[in-house]
């Protein structure tokens, strides 16, 4: 009788523990993991071109999200035409992706917990006049490509640009694994 009660308690404890962990988002069994969330470009020696434009530092977003007021630790990831992408260390465990298009006079940013990089990308998707979206993304080490609508682009310096994404998602991946990223409707 005692054994039965003991085993019942053990099974109940395991079940409750599993339920709690899954609610905390630690289950993640169905999500493919690539890398450990590290971003090696943040470790390279700083250059003058890594400095964020003063206009970006003046936005309320910078004070709320960036680890330091002057954007210290930022790295220029990619320049494509007039578009520039930066990675910026964020507060707490966050990492930020910032895009600046000086010709268009636009800027944008997204900050998220670094854990996102293990199962996908910190990205921004801008709707364009033709209804497609331009997706810019930051991925962790290990990711080698991003792909949408059958077109694949290389990840360089932990970043990618997908210029005309139609549909509800795109993929990022390594030679061994692929992750699907949902853009929504």
């Amino acid at each position, binding site marked *: 009788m005692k054994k039965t009660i003991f085993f019942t308690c053990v099974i109940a404890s395991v079940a409750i523990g599993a339920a709690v962990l899954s609610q905390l988002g630690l289950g993640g069994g169905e999500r493919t993991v690539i890398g450990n969330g590290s971003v090696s470009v943040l470790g390279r020696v700083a250059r003058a071109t890594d400095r964020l434009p003063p206009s970006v530092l003046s936005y*309320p977003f910078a004070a709320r999200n960036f680890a330091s007021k002057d954007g210290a630790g930022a790295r220029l990831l990619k320049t494509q035409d007039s578009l520039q992408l930066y990675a910026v260390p964020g507060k707490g465990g966050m990492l930020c992706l910032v895009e600046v298009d000086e010709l268009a006079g636009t800027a944008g940013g997204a900050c998220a917990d670094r854990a996102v990089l293990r199962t996908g990308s910190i990205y921004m998707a801008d709707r364009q006049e033709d209804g497609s979206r331009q997706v810019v993304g930051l991925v962790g080490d290990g990711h080698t490509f991003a792909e949408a609508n059958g077109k694949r682009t290389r990840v360089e310096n932990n970043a990618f640009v997908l210029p005309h994404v139609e549909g509800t998602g795109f993929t990022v991946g390594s030679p061994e694994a692929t992750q699907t990223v949902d853009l929504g409707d």
Partner: protein
Amino acid sequence: MVHVQLKFNGRCALGATLAVVLALSLVPAAGAGAYIYWWQRNMAPDQVGRDTLTPHNHSYNELYFGPNAGWLSQVWEVTPAGYRHFDKRCVGNCFNAHPRYFSTYSYCANRDGRVHFVYDCMDEW
């Protein structure tokens, strides 16, 4: 007949020039403003926060979950005629800054599949 002769010396002219420059530089700022249109509430999936009080020539729109962001978000603007502009989807906290091209209303949304606390959504014009 009384003749009034105005005499400008160099110091006076410099002062007048500075006053004009200062006044001109303050004209755009006089119409500027900022507004928090979603304040410290839970947002359900696809729930939309709106700043539809008065259309403005917006230059900035931001959604801020808080310091622990990691969920899908969206900010966008719509003209009174219904045309959508500056539509950006993000992972986590999100902002979009742009020239003041259109008179618009501002919107933000939690695009994750679960309810999340949003500290605020704010716009500037």
